[in-house]
């Protein structure tokens, strides 16, 4: 009986050590505490009004990807979340974008994206986005043009920030 008690105690110690090792491994991999997300909603149309001056950082990219003559910024939203925590962005036209980062590995942020039209999901995708990279989702109609959603993500290595997903909106 004494031998069994000794074994059980040893097993508990070993399991605790393994758990501690798991935690230290996770910490050693530098898992970021925060994912910063930037969502720009742009309306593209052929009204020959040029590119919105507030899209100065994006105009080259938009022109290289699309052939519209007018690009107008509707809203800019910044959000912060963590791996495993879902964050949602309200988009023009009653659309909602859900983003749930999964992990950060090798300079890429794995995430799930779901775009809703009201309660109806339009698209669901799993992807890995380069840190500081941009993904563009477009196509839905809005007003007289097409809605183009630019989604940027970057991972912070800080660990002292709030764990609550938040999004701030700049409507234009």
């Amino acid at each position: 009986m004494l031998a069994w008690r000794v074994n059980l105690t040893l097993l508990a110690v070993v399991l605790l050590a393994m758990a501690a090792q798991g935690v230290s491994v996770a910490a050693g991999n530098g898992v970021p505490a925060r994912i910063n997300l930037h969502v720009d909603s742009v309306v593209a149309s052929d009204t020959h009004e040029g590119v919105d001056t507030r899209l100065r950082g994006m105009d080259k990219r938009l022109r290289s990807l699309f052939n519209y003559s007018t690009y107008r910024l509707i809203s800019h939203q910044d959000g912060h979340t963590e791996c495993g925590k879902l964050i949602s962005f309200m988009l023009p036209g009653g659309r909602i974008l859900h983003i749930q980062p999964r992990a950060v590995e090798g300079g890429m942020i794995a995430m799930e994206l779901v775009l809703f039209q009201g309660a109806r999901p339009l698209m669901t995708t799993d992807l890995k986005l380069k840190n500081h990279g941009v993904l563009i989702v477009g196509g839905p109609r809005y007003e007289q043009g097409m809605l183009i959603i630019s989604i940027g993500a970057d991972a912070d290595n800080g660990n002292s920030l709030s764990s609550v997903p938040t999004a701030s909106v700049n409507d234009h």
Partner: protein
Amino acid sequence: MAECSEISLMLGPFEDGELEPHEMQEVARHLARCPNCENLLQEYAAIGRQLRSLAAEATLPTSEEFAMGVDARIRKLRLPWRERLALVFDGWSGQFGAALGSMVVAASAAILTVFLMTPLTRNYFNSNRQAPATSLARVETTVGEQPQQLASAETPAAVSTPGNSQAIISRLESNIPSVALWSAPQDGTTVIWLPEQQQ
């Protein structure tokens, strides 16, 4: 005055001295006057002597032999596996058993640690997960080209964008029958295009 039938029931205990003092006196007074009961008492006494002599002649087992016999009978019974295992470990006397058990537990923990917890293993599994992506459908279009159709209605599309892309897409599902995906060659920006259907 007690009857013979009552006294005869008390003769055995009387012979063994197990009656109360007043009962002993009553039986003794009756025996002094009743030869039948006196004869019966003699018979009881004779039977008792014979039994004691038989017990003395019989060979009873010693306490050690008795214990071993009981132990042997118990061993013949089928025990649950846990108790059998416990008996085996208990049989290993003292520190040898404890040390061996500890070694087994430590070895198991070490194996678990190596195969489940180490970053090397984690990387191995990650590389295995990423491997199928290379065999997935790839889309390479240049700017100005017509985007290719990828997803059909309610059919999941598994796609991956080219090498310089900023995004690797492993799953894309949409109810929209013609979803397009391409990436810009200049900066690798990936585009998912969801054209709305005409009502």
